[in-house]
């Protein structure tokens, strides 16, 4: 898809909305950053490439007035989930859909370039070319794909008012939760130690929470409140573990798998894994996937008198 078409689309809807949320280059060529456009002249700075990773929909519930937003296929599940939960007024939102086959994981690129400063970044065919003071490195996009892209089924967004580009078909295998099933091969003890090791790094900066499009409590999160007093300020494992359980349980049946929680973690904790496990179970239990059908009901907020898949547990 050409950047021109996107800029056109933005220019086209700008008069109808207060602001359009897109991307521009961040502090270096390897980092894109959300861009709030309210003036036509800003549009020239707008960019679109696999570095545009952030899920811009996360801003929507907190913005008043009419808003335009650039939405990738994966991000569009956020819109759908907001609709399910009536967290946005869809008619107040102008969704500019962008076809997308993959973004890239900046963390993975950083690892490939030894965490040097990226001076230039270019995309050629299936590669991303990164120039650092030391070297110029050509990296196949496939090698720096974030996990969510590996099983992406939504090359074209589920929801859009304008599609900047041609609708395209996803070219990835469907989610089979291999990663989860693999992990479940480990012994209980190993799993326990794994999480203790990972959560031990948590500094409770709440980046995962605040970047999560479904964490709509934000400032009111129970993780910081004293009433209710679910967690203390202790920096011990129990409290860190508890916080991540709160996040995961609150996301049960709501997580749209955008992976923001994991992407933004400065300590590189695989926090999306737990949510994915829950999503896997709820899919099996209730044949439910968050953010696919606007008319669905999140499974934790409804029930059936006879639950086909829940058997009584015997002791």
């Amino acid at each position, binding site marked *: 898809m050409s950047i021109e078409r996107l800029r056109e689309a933005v220019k086209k809807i700008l008069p109808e909305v207060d602001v359009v949320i897109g991307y521009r280059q*961040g502090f270096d060529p390897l980092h894109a950053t*959300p861009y*709030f456009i309210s003036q036509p002249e800003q549009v020239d700075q707008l960019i679109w490439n696999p570095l545009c990773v952030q899920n811009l929909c996360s801003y929507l519930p907190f913005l008043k007035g009419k808003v335009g937003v650039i939405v990738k296929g994966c991000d569009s599940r956020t819109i759908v989930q907001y609709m399910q939960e009536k967290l946005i007024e869809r008619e107040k939102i102008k969704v500019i859909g962008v076809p997308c086959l993959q973004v890239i994981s900046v963390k993975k690129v950083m690892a490939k370039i030894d965490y040097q400063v990226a001076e230039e970044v270019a995309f050629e065919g299936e590669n991303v070319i990164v120039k650092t003071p030391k070297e110029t490195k050509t990296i196949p996009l496939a090698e720096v794909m974030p996990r969510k892209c590996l099983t992406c089924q939504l090359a074209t967004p589920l929801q859009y008012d304008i599609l900047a580009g041609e609708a395209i078909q996803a070219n990835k295998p469907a989610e089979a939760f291999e990663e989860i099933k693999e992990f479940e091969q480990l012994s209980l003890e190993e799993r326990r130690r794994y999480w203790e090791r990972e959560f031990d790094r948590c500094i409770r900066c709440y980046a995962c929470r605040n970047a999560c499009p479904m964490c709509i409590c934000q400032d009111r999160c129970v993780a*910081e409140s004293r009433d209710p007093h679910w967690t203390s300020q202790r920096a011990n494992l129990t409290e860190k573990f508890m916080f991540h359980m709160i996040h995961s349980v609150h996301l049960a049946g709501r997580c749209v798998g955008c992976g923001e929680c994991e992407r933004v973690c*400065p300590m590189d904790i695989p926090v999306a894994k737990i949510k994915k496990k829950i999503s896997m179970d709820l899919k099996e239990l209730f044949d439910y996937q968050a953010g696919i059908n606007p008319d669905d009901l999140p499974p934790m907020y409804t029930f059936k008198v006879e639950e086909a898949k829940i058997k009584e547990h015997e002791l």
Partner: protein
Amino acid sequence: MAECGFLAKEKINTLIEALAKKFQVFVPVLEGEVVLFRGFESGKSLCLSRPANLPPKGIIFPASDVLFRFNFQKDPEDPKKVSVELKENRDFPLTIIFGCRPCDAQGFTIYDRVYLTPETVDPYYRERREKTTIITLACNAPFPGCFCTSVGRGPATTEGSDLLMTELEKGYLFVPITEKGKEIIKAAEFEDGSPYQEEAKKVQENAAALVRKPFEHLEKLPQKLLSLFENTQFWEKEAAKCISCGACTYLCPTCYCFNITDEQVGNTGERIRSWDSCMFFHFTLEASGHNPRPNKYHRLRNRVNHKFSYYPQKYNGVIACCGCGRCIRYCPMSVDISEIVAHAQGA
């Protein structure tokens, strides 16, 4: 002439092994893709190739510190009579922070002005600070987002360090900065470092030249920022993409804000001092439910102003930002404080 020492690369571990006999030594290690400071255990391999994701500030200013424990005792005769006993938690071991970066070390000097001002000395901080020796590794290249030279510092600034090491082709040059640093040089086995000082100087200059300079001339900045205080439009624009998490402040070597809570179960409990962040809504939430900084732009404004306006005004011009770039590098939305400062200058 300071008798500086030189050590071949492969000897680094031996050095630390030796130090570890007398001190508890914190070293940067690799966990997954994350570099962070952990207590040294022999066999553990160091990661000196890049700055730690999380600066070592927690070693002197813990993320959560039990200041004291309290214990209520009840008179078995008359349960209405209750006495309380306090146990302070203040005996800390001699400590070495090994391999942090100049910016990390400077962070502590920012704290010192606050926690060691004679009229309000923080005993917990002082105790740890005095017992800690900081061995810093100069950067021989900048890292994504960092801008130390713009805030009047550099990849080899010595301020805050006790001993500055520079990576050279064959090994590391150790230049003592303080008495504590000299002690280390004396204590351990070093070759004479003087022949390597030239090479070190070059390495350091090269590095400094490569560091990006998003802004300069900070003299007028404190005043300028104050004049922008009421400019809601400016701050709302800058804060639009901020998601108000605490990554920037918790990863910041100069952020020193804390919260104090008592946690009691049964008759015993603890008073805990834990990191807090001005980016959080709860930071300024008052008991009444009123919050003077209800919006994220209020909070971002405070973070910028604290570092570039309030602090320098209080402490003769010293900027409370060491330019390590972590808040930029790790910001979920790539909010760039250096860009905001530049915008402020231009506004």
